[in-house]
């Protein structure tokens, strides 16, 4: 899985300014192309951005707007049993929870916070953090969840959804790796020694 360096990672001091300028030059046009509308209508959330690998989408589902384009399929805010996405079994939170609590009605390529703010899928940890504040706090300081990289430097984060399926977040059981050889099964090898 490709992991990117977190934005909060420590870059060397020299060149940090250059990196910032280059980053700004690269970043601004991209925002202008992709996210200006979002910025105008939905101001960016205040929490600091943390660089994470791409969310683990099921193959072929993203961008959602390839079907939910607002034209061929009109947005329907009515709470109902869906004819599509039947493979998704929602086991997260109370019975009343449903798709549009987290997915944005108007822009299906985004998620929405309880406040109505629109956020990209790469910032989904902010959505999770609304209810799981204690886990979010621990995740940000590196206690909840897995970190790889350097204990004294750059670390790679994972999104909540890399380990927890957002529609059924309980951690999935795993097959354990083989147990050690019990003493009664240790047999002497060649030379008479075990």
């Amino acid at each position, binding site marked *: 899985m490709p992991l990117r360096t977190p934005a909060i990672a420590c870059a060397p001091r020299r060149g940090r300014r250059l990196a910032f300028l280059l980053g700004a030059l690269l970043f601004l046009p991209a925002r202008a192309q992709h996210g200006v509308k979002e910025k105008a209508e939905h101001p960016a959330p205040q929490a600091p951005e943390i660089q994470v690998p791409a969310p683990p989408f099921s193959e072929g589902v993203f961008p959602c707007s390839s079907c939910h384009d607002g034209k061929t399929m009109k947005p329907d805010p009515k709470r109902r049993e869906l004819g599509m996405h039947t493979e998704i079994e929602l086991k997260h939170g109370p019975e009343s929870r449903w798709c549009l609590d987290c997915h944005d009605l108007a822009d299906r390529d985004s998620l929405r916070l309880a406040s109505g703010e629109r956020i990209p899928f790469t910032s989904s940890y902010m959505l999770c953090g609304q209810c799981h504040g204690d886990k979010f706090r*621990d995740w940000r*300081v*590196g*206690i*909840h*969840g*897995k*970190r*790889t*990289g*350097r*204990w*004294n*430097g750059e670390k790679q984060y994972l999104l909540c959804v890399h*380990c927890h399926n957002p529609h059924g977040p309980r*951690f999935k*059981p*795993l*097959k*354990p*790796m*083989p*147990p*050690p*050889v*019990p003493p009664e099964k*240790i047999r002497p*090898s060649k*030379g008479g*020694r*075990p």
Partner: protein
Amino acid sequence: MNASHPGPCSGSCPGGEGTPGRREFLAAAVAGMAGALAGCGKLSMEEFLQRNFRELAKDEIQKILLRLEKEYRAKFGKPVRVGIEEPMQGVVFGYALDLSRCIGCRRCVHACVRENNQSRDPQIQWIRVMEMEKELGVDVQHANHYYDPAVVPREGHFYMPVQCHQCRRAPCVKVCPVGATWQEPDGITVVDYNWCIGCRYCMAACPYGARHFNWGEPQLPAAELNTETHYLGNRPRPQGVVEKCTFCIQRTRKGLYPACAEICPTGSRKFGNLMDPKSEIRYVLENKRVFLFKEDLNTKPKFYYFYGV
């Protein structure tokens, strides 16, 4: 000795009557020395005469490293690097394991075996995962080390991995009669495999079962060899010496996380510098419910267990 005055048993001595002369004594001494060297297996003369690692000068260490690399290359057929990365200033390593999240999948055990070149046969594993019942709590006497269900975690059970606790008051270091094991300034207890005499006192002294003895010649397939090694860590070991977890000294002294922490799928394992107030490990110690295993023994471990929820 005068040739015209034969000793009581000169030349071929059929009966061995009388007291042995100087020649016999020397012959016996040479035979004894040869026997001692033969008993040391494939030990080279340089290795036999090598002193304790802590007493070696830098140029002596370099010679030893070159010799070891040559030996490993001949044995495994590929280049092996033996490093001696030194402790970092102002760093004391600590480790914390989240008991509320560990699911007992043993990914850490096998990542450790691969990273640290442990013998596959006879099997040596530095990490042991105990399965215990939630109702009984931490109850070592009823722990199951050999659980093997289809999936983990099993209902009603929790899992507690145990490895070297890198004690500040390490009983293993205290009992070693030859000073072959000691605690480094960054808190890692290491073994000089070339100085260890295999008496296993340290194994008897360790309350965590963290030390392991190479009863047989370690079997390590060349294809699975980790060629990035440390003299005091994961370099291939000979038969007859004790080995133990070193917090992956070959990784952590370069700033990397230990292999067990990196592989853990649940993120239960936290590692860092106890001297750094901003480190993950310090956050755990200051904000979580932490406990020490066998705290009553006053070993003062630097390996902590905590409840993350």
